[in-house]
């Protein structure tokens, strides 16, 4: 154990000796969380939204509400035109109201809107704004309606303002038709998705950078020297991996802390999130060992680490959320650790999942970790015979 810790400690010191590592580990990920958060974020002013409705009170109130939210609303005469706007991309989001919705509005009962989300990267965020604003408008209308039964509308409105602190949170009046994307994002705030995706992307990337570091150690002859001491391959592997996983955990904890302080990202249960991160980091460290032993050139290994990290991240939902994937793509994504970790983190973050809820994901991740670590140990032993 002492040997393992000694090796891990040296790995940490080597890592810290290269200051440029700190930029990639600490600064870049947060910058990305910020950029993606803002892109995904609340300021959607000017985004085009196409609406068709019977033109009654409900339509008018909603259109006014969306315009208040600074969306560029176009009212269309037929549902088909709205569909066309969205599919051509001239609107990010389309909204369809029917006569039933108008009736429901008048009666103060929940009504249904059909929201069509476009395919651009902005569209889901615009959908969120459309929904939130519709809910707000509808809630206010219902409340005013209720109060009106006590007197005239102006008084009611004033009373509502006074009582606003006491009024229960908006009940869900707007119902979106079956839309898996919207369901999946339910509970996600502006920076949340981006933060999870960036966390996993960057932890994996920077951990994979252990590969060139290992090649350097092999070239420097220190790996040979380590193995000439009374040290087993398993101990060496455990030491190298531990050093890297500690770095991954520190980086992860830092991104979680900083993003929650700076951008208000919520992470759900911290213990469960860290458990996912730990197993995920083990996979990255194991993969780095495999690359670091198979490849003899530091440059090639760096390229492979960055390229591999980005591709795995992209396929595994760390660039475009998995919810937007087709079924086939989703199946491919399941081959990456990122997909399982993204999925687990999303559940922890948005649905308050506990350790039992993410056991399937953790199991798959653990199996991947064992696979790469065993492979890495075998290759490390074999590599000692290769002069470098």
């Amino acid at each position, binding site marked *: 154990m*002492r*040997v393992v810790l*000694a*090796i891990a*400690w*040296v790995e940490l*010191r*080597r890592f810290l*000796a*290269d200051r440029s590592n700190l930029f990639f580990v600490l600064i870049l990920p947060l910058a990305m969380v910020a950029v993606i958060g803002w892109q995904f974020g609340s300021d959607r002013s000017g985004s085009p939204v196409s609406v068709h409705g019977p033109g009654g009170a409900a339509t008018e109130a909603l259109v006014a509400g969306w315009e208040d939210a600074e969306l560029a609303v176009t009212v269309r005469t037929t549902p088909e035109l709205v569909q066309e706007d969205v599919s051509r991309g001239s609107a990010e989001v389309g909204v369809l109201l029917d006569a039933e919705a108008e009736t429901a509005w008048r009666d103060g009962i929940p009504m249904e809107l059909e929201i069509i989300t476009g395919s651009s990267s902005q569209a889901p965020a615009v959908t969120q704004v459309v929904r939130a604003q519709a809910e707000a408008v509808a809630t206010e209308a219902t409340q005013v309606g209720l109060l009106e039964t006590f007197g005239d509308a102006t008084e009611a409105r004033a009373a509502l303002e006074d009582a606003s602190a006491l009024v229960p949170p908006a009940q869900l009046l707007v119902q979106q038709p079956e839309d898996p994307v919207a369901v999946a994002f339910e509970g996600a705030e502006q920076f949340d998705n981006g933060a999870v995706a960036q966390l996993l992307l960057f932890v994996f990337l920077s951990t994979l950078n252990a590969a060139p570091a290992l090649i350097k*150690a092999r070239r*420097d*002859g*220190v790996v*040979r*020297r*380590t*193995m*000439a*001491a*009374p*040290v*087993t391959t398993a101990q060496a592997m455990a030491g190298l991996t531990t050093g890297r996983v500690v770095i991954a955990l520190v980086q992860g904890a830092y991104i979680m802390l900083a993003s929650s302080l700076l951008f208000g990202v919520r992470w759900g249960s911290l213990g469960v999130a860290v458990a996912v991160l730990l197993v995920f980091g083990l996979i990255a460290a194991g993969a780095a060992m495999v690359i670091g032993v198979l490849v003899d050139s530091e440059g090639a290994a760096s390229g492979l680490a960055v390229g591999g990290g980005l591709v795995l991240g992209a396929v595994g939902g760390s660039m475009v959320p998995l919810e937007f994937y087709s079924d086939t793509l989703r199946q491919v994504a399941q081959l990456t650790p990122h997909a399982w970790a993204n999925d687990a983190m999303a559940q922890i973050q948005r649905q308050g999942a506990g350790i039992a809820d993410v056991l399937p994901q953790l199991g798959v991740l653990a199996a991947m970790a064992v696979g790469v670590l065993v492979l890495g140990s075998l290759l490390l032993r074999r590599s*000692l*015979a290769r*002069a470098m």
Partner: protein
Amino acid sequence: MTTPVLQVEGLRRSFGPATVVDGVSLRIDPGETVGLLGPNGAGKTTTISMIAGLLRPDDGSVVIQGVDMGAEPLAAKRHLGLVPQDLAIYPELSARSNLSFFGRLQGMRGADLRRRVAEVLEVVGLTDRATGASKTFSGGMKRRLNIAIGLLHEPRLLILDEPTVGVDPQSRNAILESVEALSGEGMAVLYTTHYMEEAERLCDRIGIIDGGQIIAEGTRDELVELTGGADTVTLVGEGPLDEVEAAVAGIPAVREVRRVAGEGRLVMVVQGAPQAISAIVATATGAGMTLRDVETSRPDLESVFLHLTGKALRD
């Protein structure tokens, strides 16, 4: 009979079709320094890798201080200090951190570790450079740190693989002196080199290795006797060296001739140089050689190697 510190029997190792080490046997007793002298590619490092448990032999056995490396590698490695041919230090870390780390791998710790680190820093003269990153060191200082790491845990057997390659003369001398001091303290040393002066100066016994085989073994004097007391004559100059080589080879006293590639040098093993030298010079100039220098020397390991293999140690 004393237990040998190192007992190697019939080591063999191939890489693909090439047999790189071909039946090497060695024995080193406590306090003995044994040299492996051979040119680049002779199989020295491969032999050492197998002795140090880094490379599995195809055949043969390694026993260190009575412990079989194949059967109990961890126990055998405890008795071993390795100074690899290529520097094996962390350039990012200081001399002290390097030493502490490798000491921990040997199971040392606490005050004991700190005391030994200070001692070996003193031995290799790096005490005042203990804290800076070792990548700022000169080549010689790095080599000294490399050796210090091998000494740290006071192994019974110290293996040095060409520890002076690429080192300035001053550092080289310091290294040789510290090796001499160690064997004086009873440590067994296996020292590989392709410099015959180092082997002559340091080693109680020398194995001459070529093509993966130990082709002769003994004390310096025993080895030199193999040449039959022949001297070495070296001609330095320009001219049609191929023709000169053929011409001098015809002189009866000249037993071996060898051209050193790339230099205007002919090295020959000569029976009775003092009598033959004038004939050699006359023949060489007669064949068109412009002489710049003539060296004669009493037999040394260089001439032994030439005698045994027909090749120069360094070319």
